[in-house]
């Protein structure tokens, strides 16, 4: 595996200005550390040649960057209008029951974080649930227990 520093240098080379590598570098750091911990932000800053404060200021703007620990799996239920009209709230409540957490929380074993998310751009195939950033379409409340089982068992 290439090391993080070198990989960020490669990303920087794609752009006329190193700053454009900030979002890709943050994504990479998050993949490596699980979330953007102070250490992850320091490592990111070093590779980019900037300060951890700059990295944090940028990261805090974006929903996909986690500045606090999240579970090994991320379950995101779209509750925007089109999904809501097709029962997204019932899907969300299904996940809350199955996982034993409320939206925005992580299971006690640190396995799964559940949260609602704004429109994922799959409105005609509602309800959209993103499992570890991959879309499931047409999710119904009845599908929830199988998805949770898959997450629990599938590693």
């Amino acid at each position: 595996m290439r090391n993080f520093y070198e990989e960020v240098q490669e990303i920087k080379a794609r752009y006329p200005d190193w700053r454009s590598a900030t979002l890709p570098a943050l994504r990479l750091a998050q993949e490596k550390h699980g979330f953007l911990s102070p250490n992850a932000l320091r490592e990111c800053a070093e590779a980019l040649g900037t300060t951890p404060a700059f990295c944090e200021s940028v990261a805090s703007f974006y929903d996909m960057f986690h500045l606090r620990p999240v579970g090994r799996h991320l379950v995101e239920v779209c509750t925007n209008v089109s999904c809501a009209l097709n029962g997204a709230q019932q899907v969300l409540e299904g996940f809350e029951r199955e996982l034993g957490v409320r939206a925005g929380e992580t299971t006690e074993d640190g396995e799964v974080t559940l949260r609602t998310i704004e429109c994922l751009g799959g409105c005609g195939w509602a309800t959209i649930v993103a499992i570890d950033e991959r879309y499931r379409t047409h999710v119904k409340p009845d599908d929830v227990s199988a998805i949770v089982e898959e997450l629990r068992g599938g590693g």
Partner: protein
Amino acid sequence: MAAEARQIVMAGADERDLTKLAEYEAIGGYQALQKARGMTPAAIIDELNASELRGRGGAFFPTGRKWSFVPKPDQNPNPHYLVVNADESEPGSFKDNEIMARVPHRFIEGCLITAYAVDSKNVFVYIRGEYTGPYEVLVGALEELHGRADLRGEVTIVLHRGAGAYICGEETALLESLEGERGQPRTKPPFPAIAGLYASPTVVNNVETMATVPPIITMGGAEYAKLGVPDSRGTRLVSLSGHIVNGGNYEVENGISMRDLIYGLGGGIPEGRRLKCVIPGGSSTAILRYDEIDVGYDFNSLLRLDTAMGSAGVIVLDERCCMVQLGIRVNEFYEHESCGKCTPCREGTRWMSQILRRLEAGDADQHELDLLLDVCDRINGKCLCPLGETAAIAVASYVAKFREEFQAHIDEDGCPFGDSSPLHGVLAPVAQHTHHPTATVPA
């Protein structure tokens, strides 16, 4: 115009796997690029002007004219950039998702033609961070193209993934984000064509616009302009969602009747329910009542009804829906996505949410309905970008079209629909309970 599909952008995708270069070339793929490279950039722009193509992101700016604004090298020595806005995030809109996933090469071909026309060697595709599927398709398509210098030429295409921010669909916020900053809009002017990415001349175009360029070059601008209606030429990918039997994307000629779109292609409302209203162009657009859908689906026809085609995301709502609940849900999206730069948007959307919640709970006094409209008025036209404004326009339209329903919430001290409305009690991200174990305030 009757409801029927007319495939220009999606042509061939139902019959073949056009994510494969060989399949795309088998139906004449990349021949428009070869044809374009035999033309002068000025001739390509003339062809685009003849096609009357207007930007498919929602702002309807004439594409050829946008390209012609890019200064000539003797006017500005900086390199030119082509930035593609693939940050599709408008609630109700999911067309670019399908274009990138199913006709990636037509999209890339459009990018290469455009890069040639505006004299750019660098293309940046800013794709929303959540679109893992389309991103991987594009990665595969570009890998196939890597071995084909005859097609690529000297142009490099960089896929740049966003990280979850609706505002980055606004072109100057997108440029900020692409430069590695928080995605907050810039003041205009200068417009991107003059000073965009790295303060250099930049053309920012939408995914669907790019994918429409190759067919225009192939068939000729004048031929393309025979499709559709005045000011809305050609086809459009319309996203149908909400209370609709056949949700999905449909490519149709501009000017199709909205009733045919919903009841023909869309198959009508599930379970025989009655239509209540339609959001015509993504949640940022003013609503149409059930009795206003005998209208052409095009720029001018919708403008006459004080609404817009926007990004062509049609959301259908049936008779069970409470308009105050819709207002809450739509407005909470904008409240969440406000970048915080302009006070009227940042604070105004919060005020709107509070008043709407008081109405829904039956706690609002009579004057608060006018207060809501007053807050909308104080956002409109007072911000750097349209985000807050669109929240205000949308919510004000719900009040204007369904005032008696808002009044009933005051008169009856609560919601006449309650939990029988499908939008009851929906948890929006902005209202999400968050778990902060380290942030507990000591007693």
